[in-house]
């Protein structure tokens, strides 16, 4: 029993990535899109559709990788990510619009 839960924890630990936002650092997993996890960390992000077609949650991706489980309908500019449907795949640094 103990060993099972340990494995589960270590599996999860492998998926944790750091998100840098200015001077803040947030830890996120690959289980949920970035937007939800930023909100859980108390960071206010603009949103509307939360399913990839309105581009309200577009955020600058300064470096690092994200992936999309499905291709969003909204136009994603190069150097930006759509927080509502992006899954963080490495440590990343993000910034809001100026």
């Amino acid at each position, binding site marked *: 029993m103990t060993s099972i839960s340990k494995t589960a924890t270590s599996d999860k630990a492998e998926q944790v990535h750091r998100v840098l936002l200015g001077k803040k650092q947030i830890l996120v997993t690959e289980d949920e899109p970035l937007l939800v996890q930023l909100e859980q960390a108390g960071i206010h992000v603009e949103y509307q559709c939360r399913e990839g077609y309105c581009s309200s949650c577009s955020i600058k991706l300064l470096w690092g990788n994200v992936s999309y489980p499905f291709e969003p309908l909204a*136009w994603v500019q190069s150097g930006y990510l759509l927080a509502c449907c992006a899954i963080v795949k490495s440590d990343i640094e993000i910034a809001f*619009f*100026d």
Partner: protein
Amino acid sequence: MSYSTFNRKQFDSTKEPMFFGENVNVARYDQQKHPIFEKLIEKQLSFFWRPEEVDLSTDRKDFQRLEAHEQHIFLSNLKYQTLLDSVQGRSPNVALLPIVSLPELETWIETWSFSETIHSRSYTHIIRNIVNDPTKIFDDIVTNEEITKRADSVSIYYDRLIEMVNIYNTMGMGTFDIPGKGSIEISMPKLKKALYLTIASVNVLEAIRFYVSFACSFAFAERTLMEGNAKIIKLIARDEALHLTGTQHMLNLMASGKDDPEMAIIAAECQDEVRQIFIEAAEQEKEWATYLFKDGSMIGLNAQILGQYVEYITNVRMQTVGLDAHFATKHNPIPWINAWLVSDNVQVAPQEAEISSYLVGQTDNSLDDSDFDDFDL
């Protein structure tokens, strides 16, 4: 070159630009140059709704209890929304269908415009339900100076493009003396420039002007007033978010040169003018905010806060189409608007509450006897 409703030429439509190539002949979607437009069509169809689904009986009582200056805010806002959707319900068809060259884009334009007609019908539904004489309200849209000023600015680019395309279709290229208008030069770069500026001004209409009006509608609902109206506006906002994605795709495809290399040059030349369209629209919306709140503010919203929201949303939208932000405002002064704009909890019917865009009446053909194993009679 005149428009044909069924172009007899044989050509590969995937080699055509979005606009000003061959007229579309076969409405076929088996081969597509820009598949995004068919995805937008599918999404839009999945959003289908009817205004009559929303009950407005409480709104009537709420409206009667509003103070006079609040009634002014509510009705003026509704008149403005009516104007915007009157324009949007026809103009993409009239202006863009004669010059579109891709079947998937042609159908997106028609689908987009159709959904705007649902919005227009919903304003009549709202007005009928809250006042005894809707005529007074509708008639004022063409006589009220503040509203007609708005009408000029939202229709000017459409009208110019339509006029130029009409001349092009009847007379071809050249410089023509048009009675009452003076000399008008028709050339492909001029036509393309008029088109690019039109799409930019439509993007401004959908991305800024509509959102300013949504803020007013939701400000009432924040005070648990006019909630039926807010429910309808939520459905409209969901559609508009999709439409503005459509125009953003068109603008970005044009600017990238991937669709039509000549368009990329024109887009680059027009950058300052497009910037100006955004900034002017923002200034007009701020003026409008002053008019709305001229007799008094309401709890949660006044001319100053709405003005800040105009600046904020303009900055965001400018950056989405690759322009630098213009205003100093960096934060959304009305963060509560997001909770109203979020579309996945728009409740049309209880069984649809979880997913607002799903396929209605979809059947499952892979059914066999084993699926009935759990059944006992």
